[in-house]
């Protein structure tokens, strides 16, 4: 959350790089020719009004949707050349909310995160005793839930399980698609704190879609502000969270405060 250190981003190691990237569905272009980078050890956020293509961006990076044009590189490697399995060893996603039809146990769901690392026919992919599974359960503090069925959990608990599953994938890039939009503030902060800790300790690269401006101010090091199919502004959180930029982005008069001694910004609606 401390942002005083000099950011000479050109000098940082680049983990993910998109060049001339267009995303969309069939003939509909949602995001047009984006250029951006993601760095290890940085918590990057995406902000923008509803329908601006934030989720499309996430889904394109993890190749649930194929890009319309442009290239994506992961540590120099062309993303399109990777198999889905090796991609899932590099990039993990925490979804917004998933509807689960079948009552798998929490431990089973987390063990699914090991699937990209298992190989061969009849592959385990479901190794319940795996130490990585155990570690992910511990890291997210849900060991006590491991024998519960996921269908019986509350929204906050379920989101922790999905985060644990993503961590069990041992990715180098973690994507979060509005991971906290259905959660109360304490669960939201808990989830984002856990992610922040991984970013700091494991130098995980993170790109999270935020709905809540104040949560973005609280956790993101760097922000991409998306509107009308392009990245309008990007920069350190402190640089881009300004009244002019935000008011333009959301077409709403917004006020930015910098409470003394808090070290971060706060946003509110001007009435």
């Amino acid at each position, binding site marked *: 959350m401390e942002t005083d250190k000099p950011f000479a981003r050109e000098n940082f190691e680049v983990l993910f790089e998109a060049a001339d990237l267009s995303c969309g569905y069939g003939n509909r272009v949602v995001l047009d020719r984006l250029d951006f980078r993601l760095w290890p050890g940085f918590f990057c956020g995406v902000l923008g009004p509803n329908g601006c293509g934030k989720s499309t961006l996430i889904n394109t990076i993890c*190749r649930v949707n194929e890009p319309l044009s442009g290239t994506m590189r992961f540590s120099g490697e062309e993303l399109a050349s990777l198999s889905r*399995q090796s991609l*899932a060893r590099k990039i993990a996603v925490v979804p917004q909310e998933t509807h689960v*039809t*079948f009552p798998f146990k929490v431990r089973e769901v987390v063990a699914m995160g090991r699937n990209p690392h298992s190989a061969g026919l009849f592959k385990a*992919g*479901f190794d319940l005793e795996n130490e990585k599974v155990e570690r992910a359960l511990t890291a997210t503090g849900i060991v006590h839930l491991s024998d519960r069925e996921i269908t019986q959990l509350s929204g906050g608990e379920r989101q922790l399980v999905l985060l644990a599953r993503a961590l069990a*994938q041992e990715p180098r890039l973690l994507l979060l698609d509005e991971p906290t939009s259905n959660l109360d503030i304490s669960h939201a902060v808990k989830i984002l704190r856990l992610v922040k800790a991984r970013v700091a300790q494991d130098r995980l690269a993170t790109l999270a879609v935020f709905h809540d401006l104040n949560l973005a101010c609280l956790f993101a090091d760097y922000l991409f502000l998306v509107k009308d199919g392009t990245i309008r502004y990007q920069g350190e959180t402190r640089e881009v969270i300004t009244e002019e930029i935000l008011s333009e982005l959301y077409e709403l008069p917004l006020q930015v405060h910098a409470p003394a001694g808090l070290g971060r910004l706060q946003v509110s609606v001007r009435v």
Partner: protein
Amino acid sequence: MTDVNSSRRIPAPVYCLLLLLLLLLMIVGAAAVGAARLPPAAVWQVFTDLFSGKVDSSVSALAGVDSAARMIVLDVRLPRIMSALLVGSALGVAGVVFQGILLNSLADPFTIGVSAGAAFGATIAILLPSFFVLPVFFSGTVIIPGFAFAGALFSLSLVYYIARNRGRIMPESMILAGVIVASFLSALISFCQSIAGEKLAAVVFWIMGGFSGALWSQVLLLLPYCFVCMLILQAHAGDLNIMAMGDTTALQLGVEVYKIRRRLLMVAALLTAAAVSVSGVIGFVGLVVPHINRILLGPDHRRLLPASALLGGLVLVAADTLARTAAGASEIPVGVVTALLGAPFFCVIFKKKFQQ
């Protein structure tokens, strides 16, 4: 913290062992009952002779089992039991796969119209003028199943063609396409029935399903076929688990969703097609068996698949034994038995599960 009773699961090895034991007992029992009642001990003797290689009838005669009993067991009842066993297993496994892939607990092996295709094929075969066909003897054992299988493949490719969109198959479109194709083929079958004349009874009886006239040759064809199909499905059991979390999640977890779904649908449909072409349309097994196992074992497909093969086989052997013995000399179509007993049984289980 509320620990709901339904989350308790039976250990899969124990359950499967139990089913295997029951299945063995059921086979011996089923081979013993019928028009000629045989003592189970004699049946057992015939089995042990068979497996110790004493195929020559003169040898087992020494053991006190007469050759007539031997013939009834080996040539009449056992092929029928084995057919029912294989078809039941196939339907049980296919049911699990269809429910898992289509993410729909109402799905069964016939959801995507394979049965209508098979019934249509069989109807054509039965109505073909007899001079088209080889000797009448063949028509029941080769021609009808052959046509039924071809019909099933035909309807499958039709459904596949309709549901396919840019190389991807979505569950909803598969179900819709299945309904469309099935209702079209059903209309064709009804039309054929209306012009069938004296052959109407044969058509209707075939569609209702049954195992009378089962032959070893069918069993020997079906056995390796089913085995290979089930092996392929079992190899993807882990993928099925992950795909149950939804397409997006499965893709993000490294599963080639579209490729694997295509493969699983094909194999499960081929399994169903073979089963239907041997036995006619037998409902309820492919729907009920996966549900019972899911309640008892939980949703892990690696356990569900083998357990459903065993339970499906067990259920259908039991149903077929009832079908050929319950009404004395005349036979009840086995599809009628499975639905008559399956529906109420299923209701009770379902009610219980939801009341908890």
